[in-house]
């Protein structure tokens, strides 16, 4: 058995139910240490292999892979990657009001010319540590610690 096998959920078993249609927590999230396997610019995520390669620091990369592509990627990266799929909750804000909604509980500058598609920003969201990724013109992906899932959904619902 792999040393870190206990971090990876077995999809054949019952798992946590999604908190709503915007819940994208089934994204496979992998933390890579060391120089990134792809050339990345700080603040800008790269889309490749059906995944966002997000630079957190020059020596730490967060990979957000589509649920279908995730297991393959995880297998390829092996024990170099720490599987944080269960550790982060992901919520997608989409539509023309996404930025205005986020501005009610987050101080990160998400104006399109500052945060273009692929723009990636670690920072405080709803008073908890998190990440913002612009996936599309009108689509922001928020990630915070899984224990804050209920809190984040409550805050978003309260302001939406």
């Amino acid at each position, binding site marked *: 058995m792999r040393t870190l096998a*206990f971090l990876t959920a077995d999809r054949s078993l019952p798992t946590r139910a999604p908190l709503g249609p915007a819940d994208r927590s089934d994204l496979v999230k992998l933390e890579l240490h060391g120089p990134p396997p792809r050339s990345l610019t700080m603040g800008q995520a790269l889309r490749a292999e059906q995944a966002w390669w997000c630079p957190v620091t020059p020596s730490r990369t967060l990979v957000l892979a589509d649920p279908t592509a995730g297991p393959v990627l995880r297998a390829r990266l092996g024990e170099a990657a720490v599987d944080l799929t*269960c550790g982060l909750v992901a919520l997608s804000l989409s539509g023309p009001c996404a930025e205005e909604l986020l501005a009610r509980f987050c101080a990160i500058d998400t104006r399109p010319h500052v945060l273009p598609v692929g723009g990636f920003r670690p920072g405080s969201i709803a008073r908890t540590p998190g990440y913002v990724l612009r996936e599309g013109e009108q689509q922001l992906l928020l990630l915070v610690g899984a224990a804050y899932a209920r*809190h984040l959904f409550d805050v978003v619902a309260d302001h939406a």
Partner: protein
Amino acid sequence: MSARLPTQPGEIIDRGRPLRFTFDGRTVNALEGDTIGSALYAAGRRTFSRGFKYHRRRGLLCCAGQCPNCLVAVDGAPGVRACTEPAREGMRVEHLNARPGLELDAMELVDLVGRPFTPPGFYYKTFIRPRRLWPLYEKALRHAAGLGRLPEHQGERRWRTEYRRRHADVLVVGAGAAGLSAAIAAAELGADVVLVDEGPEPGGRLLWEGHAARARTLAARARAAGVEVLAAAPALGHFDGLVAVWQGSTLHQVRAHEHVFATGAIEQPLVFPGNDLPGVMLSGAVRRLIARYAIAPGRRAAVIGAGVADVLRAAGVEVVAVADAVLEARGRRHLRSVVLPQGEFACDLLVVSGGEVPATALVTQSGGRTAYDPDRGHFALAELPAHVWAAGQLAGHGTAAECSGQLAGLRAARSLGRGDDGSDTRVADVQALLAREQERWSPPPIRPGTRSFVCLCEDVTVKDIGQAVGEGFDSLELCKRFTTVTMGPCQGRMCQLAAARCVSEATGAPLDQVGSTRARPPWSTVPLGVLAGRPSEPAKRTPLHERHRALGARIAWAGDWRRPYDYGDPEGEALAVHRSAGLIDVSTLGKLLVRGPQAGEFLDRLYPNRVSTLKPGRLRYGVLTSEAGRIMDDGTVARLDEQTFYVTTTSGGVAGVEQWFSWWLTDWQLDVTITDVTQALAAVDLAGPRAREILGGVTSLDCGPEAFAYLDVRQARVAGAPCLLLRVGFVGELSYELHFPAAHGEHVWDAILAAGDVRPFGLEPQRLLRLQKQHLIVGQDTDSESTPFAAGVGWAVKLERAEDFVGKRALRHAAAHPSETVLVGFTVANGRVPTEGAVVLDERGVPVGQVTSARRSRQLDRVIGMAWVPLALAEDGAAVTISDGAARLHGTVVTEPFHDPAGVLMRS
């Protein structure tokens, strides 16, 4: 009384849409577009409030939301300015600070007879003797001087408030001609611009000086250029580049790269005896009442300075006299006559103007500096920091406001790198046009007197300031703090210059030496609820939270987590752990992965015991100490393979431990990585004599006492889920700590509960179980000065190690110099449970320690606890006295665990 005038060119009332509200219970008729103040004035009301100290009548003075004279409560919320607050159908308006009523105020006696007792600082003088009566005086004074009552509870707030973050390239404060022009100039060069103004409509003075159409044209151009215009949105303050702007229930927090201040100027009142009487008005107020609300402000008017005489005559007001100076205003309830140099005139309106002073408060908060300008008789902007620009009257460009705004807007855009060389040419051109306007002006003299008010907010007179200076408060800042001049709701708008002039006259120091006071935020009166924002407390919940709720758990805060305190029967839950098995959610434990070729060496340098000697598959207790050798956190360290360690921390400690680890890692630069996996994993502790049997039912792992021994670590499937199993025993029975993917939390929990006689237990029973074992809780039983030796975990410190570790020298010192008190267990004979925090006394009754934990144990049939006691008492059987409130308890020291002292059960 005053009917409305015929239609005025710039009026904003809608005569076809009447509405009604109440003032002190009586119905007031108003028109759509009216403010509370204009409607009340049109209905004949002249007294709007009572003075802070002397309770003299106060009426409309500025009609611009600047002075304190029209503060009222609206629907229970105090501190609203009637002259700018729009009238709404059905609103309930009440006066402030007068009892029993506004017209008959008992406290008015203070003005008539109380004056000798109320000099500046009177609360330190008149009311200080006899000293024991001060609480009584204080209560009465607070009652007399308040500005209204706030709702006491958060829940009584009837409206939602929220924050909005707005990042911008340029923020323009003030939407008069200058601000609008600045916003347009910057936006047309492509900048992202926000424009805020306190008025309900952009335009500033253009609106009441006959240029309403121009105001609308500029506003339309600004919007077309993409400027976000926020109206009825006063800027509250500049906080290190963040400008807070209040608009209705929203607090905009604007972060802009460039700031343009176009905050205009504030018309100053004159200081002369009787200057606070209702009927004395500023010329701007008169203009606004006529132009915007079509109200004749009086019948017979005296005018100081000729500016508004024509406006008054056009509105049908008889102008009985025009003069350059005023000696005194007379009248009791209202102005009746005015004494001018040429004689006394009966009138019901006195229009004054002490000139206009630039509104520098916000720009000085941003780092701008003012200096006294003798040519203009006021304090003007002398210096601006980088990325801050001033325009319009604030910059001294009164008549060329649009040019001035354009210049500021262009400069801000250039500073952002927008525009091109052509823009620079335009800057030079506009600058040439704006050759500084040099109209010399000096303010009319201050006329002293006991009723010459410098500060209307705090009822400070010219005489009071003279007296304060005489008592030694001879600098403006000292005088301000002693008399509270400039510290009222107007934030110095009406009195800053006059106060400086009074101090200058009293001390003989020139005005440039006296300086001016600095207005602190908030620049405008704002409800505290808006600043507080939406109540929102980030709560962490474990993956099992819903299961706990379904089981009827009492959920309580534990640090930033919501955790089950118990499931209704803490004693029964604890007994179940002793008799069969219990299951507790310990997902809150901090969990860190420390990996890399040098991971062992790294942890060796952090922990006072050796970590690198652990074999894969084994774990060890570890206490973390600071450089001062004090306990910071504790937990277990497990070795999963050669290069992988799994560290657990206390529930509240993980963020601090990760921070601590990565700080040292940054310093030492070892080949190690740290990952916080706390929230990725659910964790439960299965404990009790039947734990092995129950676990055997959900896993194929060999859980026999040899195959999976105490302090072993294993990986296996539990109920099908991949799982890390740790054999630790902090509740004192055979137990297994299971860590598995958070997504499977409920699945594994359900499977274990179904596997045998196992009962869920909460935090409270866990504390009892730990206490029975004398397992300390960091932060509960220890504080920032506790060393491992004093706290009874000195066995986890290996000073004999050759290599260095954090805190080693301090710990060596601590080992050689035992601390005065140590942590021990105790029992209490008479069965009462001492309060945590109760004091331990020595034989003379002197406090020498304290109780940190205490519980009644049904299993042991005793009251047990932990306490810090003097070293001399730290032996079995020593008697301690505990002072708990009025009670004296007699305890006996027990140094061994109360339950299973040899640890046979947890190793079984």
